[in-house]
């Protein structure tokens, strides 16, 4: 089934804390997993992505983890900042597929 489940729906953390967002999927053909960040009034933009051959990818304060056996992925944001307040979408795609399957998003609020 081509569906990506994302949790939590909404999350509030304090500045300086660690944020953890999670996603799960069922389709074993998925092999590319991007995370998109969307600020109010803007379109989503790619934040970080990982291929199924890897289990971890870092980009500054953002790290995504991939667990192939459990079909789960997560996004960790360390030292969360108020500027990180946004909606985050996880997504999944199969090789040669035109479609990217998006989760429903997590609204993150980082309080100063």
């Amino acid at each position, binding site marked *: 089934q081509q569906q990506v489940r*994302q949790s939590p729906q909404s999350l509030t953390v304090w500045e300086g804390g660690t944020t953890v967002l999670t996603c799960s999927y069922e389709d074993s053909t998925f092999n*590319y997993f*991007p995370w998109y960040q969307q600020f109010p*009034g*803007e*379109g*989503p*933009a*790619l934040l970080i*992505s990982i291929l199924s051959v890897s289990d971890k990818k870092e980009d500054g304060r953002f790290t995504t983890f991939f667990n192939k056996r459990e079909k789960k992925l997560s996004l960790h944001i360390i030292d969360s900042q108020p500027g990180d307040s946004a909606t985050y*979408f996880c997504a999944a*795609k199969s090789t*040669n597929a*035109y*479609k*990217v399957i*998006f*989760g*429903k*998003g997590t609204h993150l609020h980082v309080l100063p």
Partner: protein
Amino acid sequence: EAAVTQSPRNKVAVTGGKVTLSCNQTNNHNNMYWYRQDTGHGLRLIHYSYGAGSTEKGDIPDGYKASRPSQENFSLILELATPSQTSVYFCASGDRSFSYEQYFGPGTRLTVL
């Protein structure tokens, strides 16, 4: 400079009217997509295209048509707009490259009264 632009940015339409949303990309990407975003539903794919002259149905195509007259332009057409089509619509472009990244436009807020 913006690689994906959408017009109009805001639109108010009447029920039963025709609405055309336009998208232009300067990325020279083969693939283009139309999504709608609603609270609780995330991004849902309406139509997509893998090149000029092609259009394909996405996950929620009912009530929508699409047109891809050129590599750069991709339109979404609501022939008979209904209040249930009130939403924010995003266009995106992408290529069949290793990165698979999609580049989104700024969105169009459509209100159907």
